[in-house]
């Protein structure tokens, strides 16, 4: 145990630099997946067949490709096509795109859970599609969508570790580098696991808060 704390103190600063990148990747891909997911969901419920079919097929393509393959594609294949991305850019883009499919389905479920009478009431006072979305549907859908959205945040935090496969030196990769140079596998990876857990706990509490609030209505 004494050895663990000693190692922890020694490796902590290096691992913290990994934590910083983990947070950057998580937040970046969260924002991107949210924006893309909203766009896919809006296309899906737009009532315009071409848009809705395009969105449905996009979602299926994205869902059908493993995140790691998407990351390899962006980082190793795109340069052949003339688009060179930094590892960090590729990681955020890849995770953002991969998760946009889940976000879209979550948003769509929230939107479709809104009572049809709400939409009719909005139409009956002369609201168009976008105004109905903005003033009536989305504010109500947010409450429904938030708990699963919180879960996606937790999954993204953990899946940001996949960025290590394309050389982003986030927490998992830093841990692996330290472990392979010091052979202190147990201590290093225990520490890495604890650090992920520490970052997850506030998110888990946030989800619980969302769930309580959604249950109130």
């Amino acid at each position, binding site marked *: 145990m004494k050895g663990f704390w000693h190692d922890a103190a020694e490796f902590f600063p290096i691992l913290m630099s990994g934590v910083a990148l983990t947070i950057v990747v998580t937040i970046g891909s969260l924002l991107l997946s949210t924006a893309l997911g909203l766009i896919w969901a809006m296309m899906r419920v737009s009532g315009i067949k071409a848009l809705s079919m395009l969105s449905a097929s996009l979602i299926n393509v994205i869902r059908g490709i493993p995140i790691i393959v998407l990351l390899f594609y962006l980082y190793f294949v795109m340069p052949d096509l003339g688009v060179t991305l930094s590892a960090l850019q590729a990681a955020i883009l890849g995770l953002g795109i991969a998760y946009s499919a889940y976000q879209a389905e979550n948003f769509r479920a929230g939107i479709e859970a809104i009572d049809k009478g709400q939409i009719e*009431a909005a139409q009956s006072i002369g609201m168009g599609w976008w105004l109905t979305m903005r003033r009536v549907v989305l504010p109500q859908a947010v409450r429904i969508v938030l708990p699963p959205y919180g879960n996606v945040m937790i999954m993204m935090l953990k899946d940001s570790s996949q960025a290590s496969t394309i050389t982003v030196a986030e927490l998992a990769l830093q841990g692996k580098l330290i472990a392979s140079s010091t052979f202190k596998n147990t201590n290093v990876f225990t520490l890495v696991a604890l650090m992920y857990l520490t970052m997850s706990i506030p998110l888990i509490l946030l989800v619980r808060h969302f769930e309580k609030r959604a249950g109130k209505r």
Partner: protein
Amino acid sequence: MIELNDIHKSFGKVEVLKGITASVEKGEVVCIVGPSGSGKSTILRCINGLESYDRGEISVEGLKVDRDAPSIVNIRTQVSMVFQRFNLFPHRTALENVIEGPLYVKKEPRAQALERGRALLAQVGLAEKADAHPPQLSGGQQQRVAIARALAMQPKAILFDEPTSALDPELVGDVLGVMRKLADDGMTMVVVTHEMGFARDVADRVLFIDGGVIVEQGPAKALLNQPQHPRTQDFLRRVLHPL
């Protein structure tokens, strides 16, 4: 002001409206009565374009009702609707529900919309409930807020789709009272209802609809007191003396 000419409408293979021709004059109160599933609500929903129709033509003040045309917004701001299940926006207060249309559709100045919104809530007897959210209100109160919301658009006519059917019996009177006052003030109203007393006392005309056609129509008192058609007679007997 509202004209329906030979309206046909099918849901899938079921034809619910089989040629409805009717008109509503300015200031008139028309009640539509008939058994459930007869197409009463569908007629209302076609008038403000919540539903499309397959054949015939509906016009409001000479403007054709076409739910896919941009002009539908114009029609909806002139013809408000009150729903059976109120359909208030649960995330907004009573007052916010009322001013939503004036503020965001008609782009009225906020102060003006607020002032009129409060006056309308007072008119339906709910001045003190302005800041309550719909789930905190009784059904009757919610429906009166919904009527205020409809009035806030300063419509030329209001469509009522069974406005008291979802209410507990002791709350029906408050809502009918508000509607009666509107009628007295000269509002053009089309009311789908099972409240025969209201139809008899308040309506100018009654349409009896069954099986997607107008079976009989006429002045309210005459039609409800001395129905001519056997189906009307049978329906009224069953509604007025259910036991």
